């Protein structure tokens, strides 16, 4: 299978006061297209930091990360913004929608900022929203919608520009079991596309079975690389 992400000897330091504190240690990893990979581990072990780096939001300290064949190490800030715009879809625990914009407008942001004409962008966003059970909700503002519906807007925003990589941080943590499952089903569907890969950070053991592969982290290191059945069995 085609490699989506290759991580080699990755370290990450954060400056704290005057010192640097290392939070990721020598991470080595390959992630393929067409897979749904979950990243699990105790709080503070570095999951968010890792996906922030591989999605081009955070810079890295040592080693290199290649995403879709492009090295992130050498990229300048603006290049990274354009890289994210083209290749990454984000889904956050807090949804992070803009309260003044309608569902469709929120979902259309990645297209709008890439210069797609407004009507076209809104139409595209509306189509995706319709496909994930948001028909009739596209004109509403986020505060008029439930958490599950808001997360669907975020999913639509992550998909609207057709990125190859979808990165999710705790996408179901704020949702009840049923809504969480519905959201996971949508993400599972996306990951079945051979030209995409979905990476999900989660604590939610109810959704582990949606994964193809589960990476276990602890204290800034990857300590386990499991296929799903093994992992669930072990737990």
């Amino acid at each position: 299978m085609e490699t989506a992400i290759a991580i080699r000897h990755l370290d990450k330091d954060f400056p704290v006061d005057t010192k640097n504190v290392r939070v990721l240690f020598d991470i080595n990893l390959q992630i393929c297209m067409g897979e749904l990979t979950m990243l699990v581990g105790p709080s503070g072990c570095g999951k968010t930091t890792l996906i922030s780096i591989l999605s081009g939001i955070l810079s890295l300290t040592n080693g290199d990360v290649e995403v879709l064949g492009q090295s992130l190490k050498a990229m300048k800030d603006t290049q990274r913004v354009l890289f994210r715009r083209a290749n990454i879809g984000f889904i956050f625990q807090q949804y992070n929608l803009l309260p003044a914009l309608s569902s469709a407008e929120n979902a259309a942001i990645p297209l709008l900022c890439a210069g797609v004409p407004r009507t076209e962008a809104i139409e595209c966003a509306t189509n995706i929203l319709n496909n994930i059970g948001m028909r009739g909700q596209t004109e509403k503002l986020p505060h008029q919608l439930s958490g599950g519906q808001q997360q669907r807007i975020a999913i639509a925003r992550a998909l609207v520009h057709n990125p190859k990589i979808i990165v999710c941080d705790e996408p179901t943590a704020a949702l009840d079991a049923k809504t969480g499952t519905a959201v996971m089903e949508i993400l599972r569907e996306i990951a079945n596309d051979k030209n995409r890969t979905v990476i999900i950070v989660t604590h939610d053991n109810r959704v582990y079975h949606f994964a193809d592969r589960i990476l276990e982290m602890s204290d800034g290191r990857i300590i386990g690389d499991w296929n799903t059945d093994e992992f669930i069995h072990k737990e």
Partner: protein
Amino acid sequence: MISMALKMLFGDPAKYYGLVFGVTFATLLMAQQTSIFIGLMARTASAIFAVNEADIWVMDQRVRYVEEIEPLRDVELSNVRSVPGVQWAVPFYKGLTTMRMPDGLTQQVQLIGIDDVSLVGMCPKVLMGDPLELKKPQTAMIDKNGFLFTWPNQPLQLGKYIEINDHRLKVDSICEVAPTFLTFPILYVSYNTAREILPPQRNQMSIVLVKAKKGESLQALKKRITNKTGLQALTQNEFAWRSINYILERTGIPINFGITIFLGILIGAAITAQTFYIFVVENLKQFAVMKAVGVTNRQLLKMVLTQAAVVGATGYGLGIGFTALFFKVTANSPALKGFVLLWQVMAGTAATIAVIILFSILFSLRKVFKLDPAIVFRG
């Protein structure tokens, strides 16, 4: 992106109104105070600009200001007349005196005495009566506001009498003058009448008004007059500016207006900058999300500038509107008559507001540019 920026702005009405208020307030203070200041300066010169027939004003060297005239000896009139290049020269009296009001109280008035023969220096806008009547002894022309002040609640009419230094003068005409710096009633009389009713004094003439011969260079003529008489000779414009500069230098007026205008700018800038900063800081998470999903700093700059421009334009429009309204409402009050909103003031205010706004968003923008999109992953 632009419509997103606007929705963000209008999506938070309280803050939007706060921002607009700051700009409106600053605009109003600046435009209104500057206009009044300019109006006052124009009033200072209006007594000079009311006399259009003369080319050169000849007066004592010490005169710095149209309302504070040093008297000249009568002989200076013939001295000036004898300077080559002078077409004609006429006496002009300008000074304050006391009038007895119908109710027995006294009131300061501005008395203007104009040459009996030529009537040079006559009020340019006569509303009622025949100005030639002034040639008759013991007659006067009063300005409209002066009439309404002296005889309140009476319609404008001729034939009234006023009393100055025990002389009764018949009001035979009424005129309208541009507001002057002093707001006392204005009386026009003939130069001879002025001499009769004023307390006897050796020197009475205030100014000699001179018309240059055709083709004569005013600057050269001025020099010749000064050389011959030792007096100060100024063109209309020069005298007007000399008076204005005197006011600027010698009175607290510019300082007071300066302070008000400065405070307007300062407070307006403070309110606008602070509200804008809060607006941006409170929306930082939103800006971070946009950054994360691919909005560049340049696009964010455009968005913030759009928001600032809308706030600036709305606030400025309202502020100018209120200023115009103020001058419209007060157009008929004698204290504020003649004060108008000049386009130069509007343009200057607009430029200042633009600077305030740019200054306001400077700090906010720094914050946005430096913003680390990684905060989107944090709760």
